[in-house]
């Protein structure tokens, strides 16, 4: 305990930088999560409701995507954004935007997969019932989101948890540049490599604390909906 306190005290001189690191971590993962939900929830509902040729393949793809190694995602996004890559002209490599993109690729299959399971968990006639009450396609989707909201909060928590704690992808496409693309996980790696174990442990503790706080928030929202 004393050691941990010492570590936190050791971080005090770098508290300005620390705030930036924490904020950037939250921004990158928050933005990635928002984009993933925007893409993943409608996609999950669509896959859950419709039967069409190639659907099984898509579902398999989503399931595989749920376990994608972040470092492989990082490599893919790196090659995409590298100067000689297809999107090299955008000059996004080593920017927070590249990190958001990589995390979107990691989180979206998780969101799609959990949404798909949530929709399939509802009575399959519910969507017919909603349509039969006069809902448009958009109103149907919104209502299904409401009906499956407990599971969708779980999707949010799972997605956010997976990206705020990953290091491989953000390291590759962000480059861990001080003041620009350094987030908590990459900072922990750096501090450890430099032998600053106290700082690394303190950053790890903050990361864990954040993950705990955010999950507590999600759980609170979920249980409140349930009550």
């Amino acid at each position: 305990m004393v050691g941990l306190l010492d570590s936190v005290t050791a971080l005090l001189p770098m508290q300005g930088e620390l705030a930036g690191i924490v904020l950037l971590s939250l921004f990158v993962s928050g933005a990635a999560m928002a984009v993933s939900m925007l893409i993943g929830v409608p996609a999950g509902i669509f896959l859950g409701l419709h039967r069409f040729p190639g659907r099984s393949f898509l579902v398999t793809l989503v399931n595989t995507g749920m376990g994608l190694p972040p470092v492989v995602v990082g490599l893919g996004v790196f090659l995409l954004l590298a100067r000689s890559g297809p999107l090299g002209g955008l000059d996004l490599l080593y920017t927070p935007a590249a990190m958001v993109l990589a995390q979107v690729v990691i989180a979206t299959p998780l969101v799609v997969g959990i949404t798909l399971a949530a929709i399939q968990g509802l009575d399959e006639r519910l969507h017919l019932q909603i349509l039969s009450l006069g809902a448009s396609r958009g109103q149907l989707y919104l209502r299904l989101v409401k009906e499956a909201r407990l599971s969708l909060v779980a999707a949010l928590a799972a997605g956010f948890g997976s990206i705020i704690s990953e290091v491989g992808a953000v390291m590759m496409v962000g480059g861990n540049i001080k003041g620009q693309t350094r987030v908590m996980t990459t900072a922990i790696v750096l501090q450890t490599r430099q032998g600053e174990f106290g700082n690394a442990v303190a950053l790890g503790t903050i990361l864990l604390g954040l993950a705990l706080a955010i999950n507590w928030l999600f759980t609170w929202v979920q249980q409140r909906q349930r009550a």
Partner: protein
Amino acid sequence: MSLLRLDDVAVVREGKTLLSLPRFEVEEGEILAVLGPTGAGKSTLLRILHFLERPAAGTLSWRGERVPWPAPLPLRRKISMAFQDPLLLSGTTTENVAYGLEVRGENGRGSRERVEAALRLFHVDHLAARSTRNLSGGEAQRTALARAFVLSPDLLLLDEPFAALDAPIRKHLLQELKQAVRAHGITCVYVTHEQGEAFSIADRIAVLRRGELLQAGPPEDVLRRPHSRAVARFMQTGNILPGVVSRRTEAISEVTVGPRLLFSRAGFPEGTPVHTCVRREEVLVEAPGEASPAPGLNRFPGTVEAVVDLGSTMQVRIDAGFPGLPLQSLVTRRVAHDLSLRPGGEVFATFSAASVHLIRREGSEIDDDLGNHDNL
């Protein structure tokens, strides 16, 4: 002009034809009961009638105008539907009943009053603020009906809405529903596999089997004048005996069934192979020598084979000399008691010529089971 008409509609799923309807009509203002066993295609038919599923072939016409696919939302909103399960949304009873109006952008005072009226109509007004998770089965079903009803649809589709409820509640709700539908002049298609429900609510009955419409018409016709053996069996006629019209007079046809001769009022040319249908409740059981034979009256001596207690009535199986085809009769408990009916007892089975309905027997006719319940 019919409200909704289907022409040459076919629904095919995974290579299997689920529905094949050369023509199917819902008349404006009627209550049409669609009757059929499980797997007859009743629910598929409702999805087609609601434009929720695209048929593989055929056309749908709404008040004479062809319906495109996908059906326009304003047209789809002229129809509402309640399923066998209430399928309530999360939230309160009021929120559920108001949902259909809400998606139509109707949130004003008028719509609130409509919701309240629907809640009162289906006796769930005292549950208005209750979460739907805390409703009983009957309350949930009433809420689902109120939710479909509040939209004042031109066409109300009901898919066995009371199937999960106990018989007394079901009867009560059915009568309430009928009154409400009549009072508001709503056209209604009521799908059920329960004959009693169909007869107590319908102006017309359509019998569906394996995706095909076997017969549609007034309840009396479907019950007493089935067009096919399959319908006769499904309507629990009880006695369907194969025979041949052996003689025809102006008023009476004589039908030879095995060694017996039956009289019927139905007219078919001599030599026509027929199914002779006699409803089991029209076969009277009498003590031997009790009544004198009358002209045109079918009266056969027989031996009781079995008596089955059905609760309010008793079903009696009598060997009356029709080879392999005992006569079925439905009698009151009082009659069974007075005649001391028991296996081995001697009785007379009697029925009038007017009770004998004839169906032309086709050579290729297949003896198919349509959910027959008439065997002992």
